[in-house]
């Protein structure tokens, strides 16, 4: 009784401890904060001037790069964001028809980094930006594993206070009513800042007006549950280094199943294992009792048998005795009747027969 009560409490405690995780994971589909902001990048307008890179470097006070932002030769190599660069522009396509694509944090509606972080260092703000709080970051880098766009980067050379570095959509500038650095600097209006809902309408309108110019897809509208940054392109997105196999499930949806199983395991396992324990203990007890019973039975049976053998033996002995007495009596009678004839021989025979019988 006591054990059962305790196991029940244990189960309840486990469920209680893990419930928030499960409950949040099983949340409904989230389509972004109403009125949240975003940016639309149009690859057909980008000319690869790297002004956005320079602006980003300046407003985020990042270290100066080795080669200046005017050096367009760097476009020939494939680059990715790193701890000192929150955005890069890469060149794709053929030399005659180059296509440029800017990459930076896409500010997912349900960010993989935020859902993966075990100290809530990442947060999706109502204005659309996904921001990072270094004051709690442990530096486990699971956010980098989780991000399908390979955006978060890390200060690997920092021995004591490494940070995860990524674009924060200039959240601080947004608060002051300013545009993100890159958007403000873009000379070709390849970047449009605005409400996400508006941007989707603008993108659709562009595709509708110039069906030959665009691929009929707004990248980021649904990818990984939707992102605040979205892309238009004249060539398939795959050709400008964007994965088309990410699907539309958000990161929390991907892990919801595993998280939902937690309270179930914590709740059911103790009961199940307690049950198995009880059964195995009962089995052992029953086996023990059966063994005892079997031993008792065996003893009883053996003693009964022994008794029977004894009584049989006694009976036999009794019969034998009687017969012997009869034989003796007979002999005595015979002897008594014959003494006159051969006295010496007869006494000898009698002695012999007596020896044989005994």
């Amino acid at each position, binding site marked *: 009784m006591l*054990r059962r009560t305790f196991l029940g409490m244990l189960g309840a405690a486990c469920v209680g401890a893990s419930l928030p995780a499960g409950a949040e994971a099983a949340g409904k589909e989230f389509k972004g904060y109403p009125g949240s902001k975003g940016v639309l990048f149009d690859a057909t307008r980008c000319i690869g001037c790297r002004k956005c890179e320079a602006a980003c470097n300046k407003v985020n006070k990042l270290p100066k790069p080795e080669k200046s932002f005017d050096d367009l030769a760097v476009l020939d190599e494939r680059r990715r964001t790193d701890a000192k660069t929150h955005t890069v522009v890469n060149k794709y396509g053929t030399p005659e028809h180059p296509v440029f694509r800017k990459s930076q944090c896409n500010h997912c509606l349900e960010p993989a980094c935020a859902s993966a972080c075990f100290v809530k*260092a990442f947060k999706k703000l109502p204005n659309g930006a996904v921001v990072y709080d270094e004051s709690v970051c*442990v530096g486990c880098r699971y956010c*980098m594993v989780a991000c399908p766009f390979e955006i978060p980067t*890390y200060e*690997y050379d920092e021995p004591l206070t490494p940070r995860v570095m990524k674009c924060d959509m200039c959240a601080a500038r947004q608060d002051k009513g300013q545009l993100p650095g890159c958007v403000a600097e873009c000379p070709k209006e390849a970047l449009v800042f605005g409400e996400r809902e508006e941007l989707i309408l603008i993108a659709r309108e562009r595709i509708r007006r110039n069906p030959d110019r665009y691929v009929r897809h707004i990248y980021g509208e649904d990818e990984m549950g939707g992102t605040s940054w979205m892309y238009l392109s004249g060539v398939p997105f795959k050709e400008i280094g964007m994965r088309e196999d990410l699907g539309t499930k958000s990161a929390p949806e991907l892990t919801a199943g595993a998280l939902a199983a937690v309270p179930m395991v914590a709740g059911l396992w103790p009961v199940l294992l307690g049950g198995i324990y009880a059964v195995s203990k009962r089995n052992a007890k029953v086996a023990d009792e059966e063994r005892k019973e079997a031993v008792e039975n065996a003893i009883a049976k053996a003693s009964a048998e022994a008794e029977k053998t004894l009584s049989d033996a006694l009976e036999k002995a009794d019969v034998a005795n009687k017969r012997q007495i009869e034989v003796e009596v007979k002999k005595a009678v015979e002897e008594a009747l014959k003494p006159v004839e051969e006295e010496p021989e007869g006494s000898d025979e009698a002695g012999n027969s007596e020896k044989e019988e005994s």
Partner: protein
Amino acid sequence: MSTPASNGPKSAFNTFNLVAGAILVVGLILTVLRFTQGIGPVTNLDDNNPWGIWIGFDLLCGVALAAGGYTTSAACYIFGLKRFHSAVRPAILTAFLGYALVVFALQYDLGRPWRLPYPIFVSQGTTSLLFEVGLCVMLYLTVLFVEFTPAMFEWLGWKKIRKVVVKLTLVLTIFGVVLSTLHQSSLGALYTIAPSKLHPLWYSPYMPLYFFVSSIAAGMSMVIFEGSMSHKKLHRMMDEEYLKHHDGVVFGFGKAAALVLFGYFFIKTMGVAYDNNWHYLVSGYGLLFLTEMLGFVALPCFLYAVGVRDRNLSLIKKASIITVLGIVFNRFNVSMIAFNYHLPAADRYFPSMTEIGISVFIVTLGVVIFRFITTRMPIFFEHPDYKGDH
């Protein structure tokens, strides 16, 4: 039975101590390097490959191979298989050391290791599977420590507190199984968030189940493997009770491991069928996957079964080695080889010598501590004062 004190190695300068000592010295130098230079200069990690061998081997393999603790204690105390009793203490000790070293190894990989308690005490990221892993590992490490303490109390002669802890055995065992189920599976679930990065043959929504089931096989194989290793090196510390039951434990776990591996093979195959990934089998990664499934799951499953049928101890021990290697192979595949498979070869990760050095250092540390404890405390033998008292 002789007293433990007279049983230590004869000279401090034996081969084992010299090799282990050299490794530990190198490890300490690497440790200084890591904490003064940062992660970057001592590892091949980069922005595309944030997790390397320190997570893939030290954490994933370490936790899987320490699964002997919960499997053995569950077999003995919950399923009532009393003949496994002699294997419980070595298994609990291995598990405790395994987890302690996992946490220790994590200090190298974390950017700000002193903040390790943050997820539990400062800012709880409950939507993260890593949070679950952290919480469970912390609690389980505590449980394992408490489960280990009776051996220590017997060594120290603290009878009263030992009696209290022994009374908690069943509750601790159940708690341990719950926590193990959760974090073993969560390690697999960590990767469910990255379907675009892990090769489809390994990625599956069933990954938590795969990690959990394979950890059972790993735990049992590790008990067999480590038992036979200890037999060779620490035979002098074993009492008749342990030796009498040892073969029975090997056969029992061999049989169970054969079944678990069979089931594991089956659910892995179902995973391939579920996502209709058959066509990937005829590729380079397909070959890798088939090697893992046939060479490191089906083969040891078969060897275990034959070994148990023929009462062939050495065959079972071989099967346990293959299974242990198979688990390492599988965790490497998930965390490194089949991870980031889409990246060009130049961007792929291969561990640096320093990273490997730290991992070797940590394993050596584990072996040294294991030896220290087993040559002193009642692990392979029953303490004379507590004979038959369990």
